[in-house]
């Protein structure tokens, strides 16, 4: 929260209280602003929140524990498919969301453990390659497990997933207030996702300054030294991995319910890289940075999709670059610019892993901080 507020130029540093209020007001009114531009933008906003959750989870693995995971989207897939299996006509199961969502999270955590146990002895590039492979394996499984027994329905994906129903209230239905006034379900989804994001942020923030958070920082900075001070490096890494996966699983479940449809193509390598780009762009290890990174990089392509073609037509009279190509180009450009101008991300991580009352010396926020 404070980290988010600090992002706002000038206001964040000069009037932190005011900046906080701006953030709160923006969070609450964002869907209204989006609605002003049309339904599409409300959907984009809802998706952006899912990306925020993914980025938060991946940041836990990459930013906190320093484990480069290129197959993170696999956990998102596990969460989404769990929802599809347990709450859709596919198997005829329609369990309520408060069972399905935790189940998705649990399965994702389990997948994290299964992947983590053999591979966490690897480091750096090697770990990245193995996780990349894992991500692809999961996707290919989803793609091919329709024969001999149809489990995932293959490339067609699974349709008609149950929406989120809270105490009998189906949030995927528009709320007809009066005859000519209805509240779009996208609003409800926004606030449901927002609640999940806020919950995640609070949880992760607490983890960061906990004993475990410090252990993660330690293994990220120096594996051997971490062992030497008595950290059970394997277990601590496993926990980071499966906890990160849990957030992926929750986001995946929400995604499935929101979209009402899952198919393997939503979980390609490109998606993993996108989420990683959000984390790196925003600032690895800084929650505020990661959130901003995820928001910017999920809105940017949509803006392009809507404005690139008309703009090119207006300027050049013809479409030179396809928006899809432009999207990758802009991503690359954003990352290159970031590396050159702000190598630690939009909002660099601060080295604070202890609750303030734990430290005697007040950390200096001056220069010299990495």
């Amino acid at each position, binding site marked *: 929260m404070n980290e988010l507020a600090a992002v706002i130029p000038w206001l964040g540093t000069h009037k932190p209280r005011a900046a906080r209020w701006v953030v709160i007001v923006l969070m609450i009114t964002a869907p209204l602003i989006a609605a002003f531009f049309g339904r599409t933008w409300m959907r984009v906003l809802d998706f952006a929140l899912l990306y925020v959750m993914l980025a938060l989870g991946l940041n836990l693995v990459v930013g906190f524990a320093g484990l480069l995971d290129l197959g993170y989207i696999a956990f998102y897939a596990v969460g989404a498919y769990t929802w599809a299996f347990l709450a859709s006509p596919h198997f005829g199961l329609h369990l309520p969301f408060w069972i399905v969502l935790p189940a998705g999270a649990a399965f994702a955590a389990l997948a994290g453990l299964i992947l983590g146990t053999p591979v966490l002895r690897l480091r750096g590039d090697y770990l990245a390659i193995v996780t990349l492979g894992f991500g692809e394996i999961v996707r290919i499984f989803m793609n091919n497990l329709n024969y001999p027994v149809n489990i995932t329905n293959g490339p067609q994906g699974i349709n008609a997933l149950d929406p989120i129903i809270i105490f009998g209230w189906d949030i995927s239905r528009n709320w007809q207030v009066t005859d000519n006034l209805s509240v779009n379900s996208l609003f409800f989804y926004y606030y449901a996702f927002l609640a999940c994001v806020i919950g995640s942020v609070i949880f992760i923030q607490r983890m960061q300054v906990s004993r475990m958070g410090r252990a993660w920082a*330690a293994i990220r900075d120096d594996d051997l030294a971490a062992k*030497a*001070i*008595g*950290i*059970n490096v394997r277990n601590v890494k496993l926990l980071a991995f499966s906890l990160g996966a849990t957030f992926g699983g929750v986001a995946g479940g929400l995604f499935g319910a929101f979209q009402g449809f899952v198919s393997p193509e939503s979980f390609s390598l490109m998606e993993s890289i996108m989420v990683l780009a959000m984390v790196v762009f925003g600032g690895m290890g800084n929650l505020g940075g990661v959130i901003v990174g995820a928001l910017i990089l999920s809105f940017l392509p949509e803006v392009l999709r809507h404005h690139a073609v008309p703009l090119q037509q207006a300027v050049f009279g013809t479409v030179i670059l396809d928006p899809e190509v432009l999207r990758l180009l802009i991503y690359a450009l954003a990352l290159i610019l970031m590396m050159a101008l702000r190598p630690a991300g939009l909002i660099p991580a601060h080295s604070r892993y202890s609750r303030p009352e734990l430290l005697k010396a007040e950390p200096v926020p001056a220069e010299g901080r990495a």
Partner: protein
Amino acid sequence: MLTDTPSATMTTNPATTAPILQLKGVKISYGQITAVKGIDLELHAGELVCLIGANGAGKTTTLNAIAGTLPIATGNILYQGQHIEGLPAHQRLRRGLALVPEGRGIFTRLTVEENLRMGAYTRRDKDGVEADLERVYTLLPRVKERLAQVAGTLSGGEQQMVAIGRALLSRPKLLLLDEPSMGLAPLVVEKIFEVVRTVMREGVTVLLVEQNANLALEFAQRGYVMESGLMTLTGTGTELLHDPRVRAAYLGELD
């Protein structure tokens, strides 16, 4: 330089006390390559023993195996009379075996204070930790001035001090120091050795791995010389210091 050996002030007689650490026929391999080919080593409580040898002799490997960060292929490691070969590193630390890794191994993105407190990661006695912190601060006044600084921005000597201070916060009985003098100016090295000496006076046993043989042998009560994975010589610091073979091989003297 460091001429007075601490042994002069110590009353423990290594021969009569039970060894705190014993290595028996320890072999350590990296895949196909055997780095340590069966070594014996003995350390008595209160001693300061150094392990010298050329680059690649297996000194760091040996130290890491004692700390538990590397598995051994065969042989026994006894600590306080008990087998510890099977214990993971974090459990050895709980028993009082602390390693200060080569190249300092500090947590560069944490503050100095956080680094030091991480040393007490396995401890639950809050008051004891605070007291030990104060002790470390008096031992390392330079470090105390920089508590709030990010550890990665410290000088090499200061980083080494932090690494030693962090190890002390685990209340070690046996401190394993891996090349504390590496890449540091002579004056700084002297300060670090001064700290090690103080630590030893407080009753901590020290096993020191050094490439700087002259310095280490002057400083330690006993020494071991390691050569391509084997222990070739052992003796008191002075003996080794005057041994013609050591002088020729490590002290740059020609016959």
